């Protein structure tokens, strides 16, 4: 489901024009980004948490050429699903 489809489905549910929904989506994303940039964790009930985590620098070895590289530290966004969502996912049949 890409952006367009998402907006379409949301507009349908809310009985609101797509333009409005698009604007709302944009502002929500912008707000979330700003908060993450302040290194705060955002929590959505029954959905999950968005968190900023620091990855320490590490030595990695290229398996074939054996060149050792020092990868610098970095900050990443992490999403952790809530247990309620996890339970919902158990109902999905899995076809091998």
């Amino acid at each position, binding site marked *: 489901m890409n952006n367009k489809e998402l907006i379409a489905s949301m507009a349908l549910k809310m009985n609101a024009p797509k333009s409005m929904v698009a604007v709302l989506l944009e502002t929500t994303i912008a707000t979330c980004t700003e908060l993450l940039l302040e290194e705060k964790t955002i929590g959505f009930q029954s959905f999950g948490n968005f968190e900023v985590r620091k990855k320490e620098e590490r030595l990695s070895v290229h398996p074939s050429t054996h060149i050792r590289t*020092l990868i610098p530290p970095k900050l990443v966004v992490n999403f952790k699903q809530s247990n309620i969502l996890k339970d919902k996912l158990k109902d999905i049949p899995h076809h091998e």
Partner: protein
Amino acid sequence: MNKEKISSQEIIDLVASKASVSKRAAEEFLKVMITSVEEGLLAGEVVKIKNFGTFKLQWNEPRKSVNIQSGDEIIISGYYKVVFIPDSSLKEQINEPFAHLEPVILDLETQKIELDDETDSTSDPLRLFNEQASEIKNLISEIQALSSNSVLSKKEDKTVLEDTVDNNENSESNEYVDELNDFSKENESTLNENELIKTESTQEDSNISIENEKEPIKTELPLEELNNSIENKEEINSIIQKDSETLLHSELTSTPYLDDIKPLKSRKGRKLILLILILVLGIGTGFLFFTRSDSKLSINKISEKFSITEIINSVSQWFTPKTKPEAVAEKVVIPKDTNEYDSINQNQPIDSVQLLFDNPRVYNDFIASERIRNGSRLTILSKRYYGNKDFWVYIYEANKDRISNPDKIEIGTLIRIPKLDPRLIDVSNPRCILKARELHDIYIK
């Protein structure tokens, strides 16, 4: 790292205010959004949100594990997990504090000797600090050696002073003994010790008096030496030693402008205080060096001399106002100035680009504005807007009214990114980069 968790309610409030919608509408929207994403995921689809990221399901295969309490083998069944992959724009924004770092390839086979395996962020300051720390250690050990063998050192001074000191010494010594006794009466803190020492043999008194008469001569001589020989670093070290000793003596005596007469304390106690004060001095200069290590290496040498001359100048002011601190300061400043003038005296083509460089720049148009966050830097902004880190100087110039120190800008400051003539910030033109670096040197003194 902030451990605060922001609830969806706060998000709703923020969105409502930003998009100027009612809180109910914002709340409804958020609920619908979450539901839609969930629906998409439960249907097995990948949900992509522009400028944010994608949500998708990840299947984890069943695996064997152990029951922690009983120790029996159990099988963890396979399950789906919601995985979020942030968009590249979000990744870049979040990683801004570390954006300037890049992976470093270590070549251990060819480099047999040293492991230079530190990233940009840690190598230069650490190495500098280590060098400086070892320097300071040497200094302190030398000073300690000096102070512990204070009699020996004074004997050394004696040989130096032999040329200058006359036979008048002996006549002066008597005066000193008298003044010594007077001072000891006045000095409250060392009253008991003074009395004790006073009652001791005259031989001790004469020894002390000889030491004391060395003091005033000693203080004046090192200062002369200081002014003559600033260039040689080794001499600076020895000067610091003498300097710190004189500093200590000045602190310990009651009035600096009178002749130095050691208050009569036991030598061991004096040495302890001496050591402690020297250590504090050493740590102080160490901090000075460390804070200055942020700037370029080339500037560091000059700044070292600066700080030493600062100490020396302040000391010289205490003792003899006749000495020339100005001459010392000028001596160090001149090399910086000539750099600037050289660029103008050189024969450079007078074209539009050069005019751009030389004419004072006025900033009226702005293409963007940025708020300073924790960890954001002008160099990073410059790289983003102009394509090169060196052009941060123009951003600094445009915002001089808001930035007092380009190295330390307050969090929350609103920086306006100026619209610059493309010829001025041409990434491919080496002259542009040179000019930017010149300005950098000027601003980061």
